[in-house]
């Protein structure tokens, strides 16, 4: 991230901020979608996060922390979005059929379907920790710092999320699950 651009934007330069927006919006949108599992909600969260970031940018003390800082704003925008609409639990998203991981058993459609269902049963806070850690790649300590929560809480949320996903995949692996997926 260009520190000079952040500094210029902090001083009120809208053009500099627009450049920053184009640099970060893809990454932010990707995170928002993966937390909310809904393209419309993710767009709204992205918009609100970008506008809020612009408003609060003068308060960012360390421009080098811009990326983590704006991720924090985005996650909170996702929280707001999920509370505002209350529809994310039941929304349906059509994911692309192309599989990222090839043809191994973990990327089967049944696995993905179960993971999707299981993920939707997580709280929005648990989803955020999971996505920031496993998708963005932030270390768990940094996730905790970013979200303003104790490291133990972040670890607990991730542990719970992984347990739920493990259960989901275990169900897929059992022959008895076929009746449930009709």
């Amino acid at each position, binding site marked *: 991230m260009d520190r000079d651009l952040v500094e210029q934007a902090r001083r009120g330069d809208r053009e500099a901020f627009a450049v920053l927006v184009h640099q970060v919006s893809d990454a932010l*949108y990707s995170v928002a979608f993966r937390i909310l599992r809904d393209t419309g909600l993710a767009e709204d969260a*992205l918009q609100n996060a970008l506008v809020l970031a612009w408003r609060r940018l003068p308060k960012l003390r360390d421009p080098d922390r811009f990326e983590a800082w704006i991720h924090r704003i985005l996650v909170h925008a996702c929280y707001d979005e999920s509370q505002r609409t209350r529809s994310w639990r039941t929304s349906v998203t059509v994911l692309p059929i192309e599989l990222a991981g090839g043809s191994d058993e973990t990327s089967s459609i049944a696995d993905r379907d179960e993971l999707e269902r299981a993920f939707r049963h997580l709280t929005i806070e648990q989803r955020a920790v999971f996505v920031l850690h496993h998708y963005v790649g932030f270390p768990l300590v940094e996730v905790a710092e970013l979200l303003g929560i104790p490291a133990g809480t972040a670890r607990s949320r991730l542990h719970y999320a992984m347990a739920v996903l493990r259960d989901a995949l275990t169900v897929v692996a059992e022959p008895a699950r076929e009746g449930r997926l009709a």
Partner: protein
Amino acid sequence: MNDDRTLERAARSWVEEGPTRAPERAVEAALSRIQTTAQERDLVPWRLPTMPRTARWVASLAAIAVVVAIGLYALRSPSTVAPPGPSPSPSLAPSVAPDTSRAFTSTMHGYQLGYPATWAVTPATALWPVGAEAPSAPSDQLDVFIGPAAGQTFVVVSQPLGSTTSDAWLAAYEQSAPQMPPACWPAPSDMEKTTISGQPAWVHGGIPSCGFTEAIVFAGGRVYEVTGYNQPNGVFNRALFDAIAATIVLKPASALDVPPPSVSDAACRLLQAAEVDAASPGYEGLGAIPGPGGTGAVTTCVYTSGGGDIQARLTLTNPGGPAAFEVAKAQAGVQTISDLGVPAVFNPNTLTLSILKGDAMVAIVPSFLATNTEQRIAMASAMARLIVTRL
């Protein structure tokens, strides 16, 4: 599948699926909103009720500093600096009248106005619910008018008063920004008074330390906030503010959160009982009762006084008002009333003032307790002036 590494690999593979590019429309929409959004170091006190506490303090202290600095300068140079007046709104008198040639009708908030043809408007798409604090910009609750100069913005928003009164609303409004210096956020009694759409309005702000100029006006059970601001920390052109405000026609009954009138209560929604009281000094009543015969285009409303006496009666004919007015005007002995801004006649035989606006005619019968024709016309005219703004 059971070991953690396999699970982690499966979960990562799954979470990586999905879109990785932000839709251009979302990014452009955000950038568009940012064009009209101030950073929080800016003073935007017209939204202070929803600003973070720290931002309010920053804004307040900055404003106080400006006021103190001006005061010290005034003390040091008494011969060259005018004493602060009660209405500190500098007018940027332009050489020509501001352009307000483009019309806008707010179906969301119930009003219409004229604004400069070079400005862009973004209508509100959401209501400002009763009892909720004023929305912060950017907000889909605001009708936003954006000028060609950076940071030049005019916004309008309204909400129903609900169960509160205009006085109580103003009192709460005054309390909503306790840190603001009085120069920016005075008590309503100290605000500049003006008129918008025939209704009394309260204006405040208008100096650099405020960053905004705002008018509050009530009509038909709604409150309207009309605000101009020029960021960062500028003064919205007062001549333009006044010019736009002068074009405002409040139509509270047409706001989206007003339920469609039933056949029988359309006439009752023209005036509140308190307004009939105010127009009938000495003959205060108990409330409004929709007329029983309200079918089709003709509805009535009876405002009652103690003991079953009629305080006032309104009969609304809409549509079909012009034909009904022609009938009223043709009656023997009617007097033309010329100071209401719309065609109006008073029939001294039926003690009825009839006014016409568009397709609607309203027949107003003031309190029969009035002692003479002049008093009846005065009472009916006072009610008519309110009704005209709501038709």
